[in-house]
């Protein structure tokens, strides 16, 4: 692909501008840091570790020079990158976390009034309510509860393969509800 060849010739420092195609790396960080930190913090429960995860994820994106506009809107892409980074960090301390998860009360959808984006949070909550109870449950456990697929399979006594496909279907349906559905 021509785009990739061209960017490979750039130096690391020139790359970010190319990578973000005028969106501007600085503006992206300044606009999104709050949301990205919330995503990392929800997983890591430590404000410094969360900041580190955000920085590490952005550094990776910035220096890998792989992001272009055809990869989709920047914010959802960065949110996914940060969450992967945060989850990678806790994989190392999984044993400790398992104990915390077991001690944690039932996972629930966060309170929209306390959300970073209350309007969007209410929309998400309404969309979640239109899913089947099993679909909603698997999304809430995986996203808000921070459980791994194996943990969900374990606690719900459902085969891992079923959990995987159920979660995939649930997220697709949630996307459909959010983009096309009227409330």
């Amino acid at each position: 692909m021509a785009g990739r060849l061209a960017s490979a010739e750039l130096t690391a420092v020139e790359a970010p501008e190319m990578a973000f195609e005028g969106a501007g790396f600085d503006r992206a960080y300044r606009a999104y840091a709050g949301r990205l930190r919330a995503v990392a913090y929800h997983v890591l429960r430590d404000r410094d570790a969360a900041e580190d995860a955000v920085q590490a994820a952005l550094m990776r994106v910035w220096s890998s020079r792989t992001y272009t506009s055809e990869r989709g809107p920047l914010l959802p892409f960065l949110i996914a990158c940060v969450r992967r980074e945060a989850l990678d960090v806790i994989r190392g301390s999984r044993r400790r976390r398992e104990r915390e998860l077991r001690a944690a009360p039932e996972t629930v959808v966060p309170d929209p009034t306390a959300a970073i984006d209350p309007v969007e949070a209410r929309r998400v909550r309404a969309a979640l309510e239109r899913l089947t109870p099993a679909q909603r449950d698997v999304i809430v456990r995986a996203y808000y509860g921070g459980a791994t697929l194996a943990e969900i399979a374990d606690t719900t006594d459902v085969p891992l393969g079923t959990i995987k496909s159920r979660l995939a279907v649930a997220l697709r349906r949630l996307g459909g509800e959010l983009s096309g559905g009227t409330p």
Partner: protein
Amino acid sequence: MNQHCGDDAELYALGLTDPQRASAIEEHLASCEECRSRVIAAEAAAAALASALPAAPAARSLRRPQWTSGLAAAAAVVFAVTSAWEGTALQGAAQHAARTDAALSAVAASHFSHTTLTSQPGTVAKALYARDGAWMYVIANGVGTGAHLILRGNGIDRDLGALVAGAPATLFVRGPGRVGEVVLVEDGRTLAHGVPVY
């Protein structure tokens, strides 16, 4: 890597694929529009879920993670400074923002390097600088309001003025040229010094 992502597209967007699988998916996405669309849709739904999360508290301190490369280091410093500023009082916020803008624009637009200054106990300082001498950005924690930036070269000391107070204190200088040594001085005492490598 020609295999389509299948349900892993959604699991990837949620961060639930292991790192090896995630890398394979990323490689595949570069050449497969179908899977890319699926991942983009899944990431949009996952981002919507994220909007219901509560805000995170700001980091406690200026963080200095892995200084793996000049680029990463500079990026990390700028991130850390920006986020530290977000936590500062409203007073001076606009000024901070203006300084961040100037510094980030310069960093993004040119080849630069960085050096950690040798500091007195209690002081942490770094200098980021353009390799062509077009700008220098000094960041320091643990300095008082009277800390000045001195640029030494060709036997001459140039006083560039006081660092702008804050946590961290910073000073952005345009057009210093290539300097021999960077020194932070307060009340005649050297707080930190270092030698840029151009």
